[in-house]
């Protein structure tokens, strides 16, 4: 499981936790997150996330 971070605001998507309030079940892999997904904090798109190591 990986983590992805919004390059604009730093919000982190953790595949393990998913984002239930955004309709993404725990364990949803980034590649399976819809292309029109937007950052819940600042509203930028999926393409503005980068994979991070934590």
């Amino acid at each position, binding site marked *: 499981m990986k983590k992805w971070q919004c390059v604009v*605001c*730093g919000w982190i998507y953790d595949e393990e936790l998913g984002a239930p309030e955004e309709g993404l079940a725990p364990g949803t892999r980034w590649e399976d997150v819809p292309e029109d997904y937007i950052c819940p904090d600042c509203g930028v798109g999926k393409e503005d996330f980068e994979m991070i190591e934590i």
Partner: protein
Amino acid sequence: MNQPAPIVVIGTGLAGYHLVKELRKLAPEQNIVMITADDGCSYSKPMLSTGFGKNKSADELAMATAADMAAQLNIVVRTNTQVTNIVPTEHKLYIGEEELEYSKLVLALGANVLTPQVEGDAQDRVFSINDLQDYARFREVADDNKRVIIMGAGLIGCEYANDMRAGGYEVDVVAPCDHLLPTLLPPVAADALQNGLESIGVRFHLQAVITKLTHENNGIKAELSNGNVVEADLAVSAIGLRPRLALATKAGLATGLGIKVNRQLETSESDIYAIGDCAEVEGHVLLFVLPLMASARALAKTLAGQPTEVSYGVMPVTVKTPVVPVVVSPPAPDSEGNWTAEVSEQDVQAEFRNQSGQLLGYALTGAKVVNKLTLNKELPAILP
């Protein structure tokens, strides 16, 4: 052999740095120079309005110094440097007496804050927070002063009201509009936000402006146009932003509300481009992050030799007011249609549709913000 002149980018805000990050991916060898009037720290401007709630210092919001960015992107960053003129016919810009040749020039100048016209001797207690250095200065005085008046109830005013309240401040908002976020929200959604902010203790003085601001009892006293008086320690001005035009105007570039550019983000002069808050893209001046990111990707390609037009898809604006989250995609100005709304306390779903039922805009608050993805699919693109 002479080296070809570099691509020069003026401005190291989100627009400038994101453009160069994208460009570097496409053009590993390209010679790039960035010039900035400030210290060139890389930071995310939207985060300036959540810093109090998260108790972040300016240093903590800075993600990288200019030197870090220069090393990471293999570029030259010239800090605390003011470009004084551009001569498009010679492909040269001037820093005082010094001249610098460019192959292509990008203006990523950002926007200025509007300054309120207020009488009285307490102008020194009025702050505006438009960049990280402003934020640092404001944090310093705000540490010991816990009562604040926010002037303006737009995006920044509302975000600051929520953020400073969350950071333990007493907050009074004074604004001439009759509802919050007047250019973005229909009244029904604005009311939900206002109720939410009032529920955490923010006080609103709408349809009023400060007419006089004076020092009083170690603090300030604001006299309002509606006759009320508000006492506080500090005032934050958040009455609006305007694209920075001075340099472009001096260089003879076409300007409107912003620096006019075509879909390739090229100004009226060839090899000069504009991006971000300073740019007016076919009539659109959008001072938000999403259009800037789309522009950075398109312009990077153009600068790397693949001319690319920017397209703006659906561009919802997220208002960072955690007490009542707001996402809005306002209908284009002069759109014909009507708002309808479903309201359940702080949860509002307002939709703007034309006569044939096409969705042209929406405003969501509270729990309804999750419906943004579904509604985005129905919306037309801003610049297809």
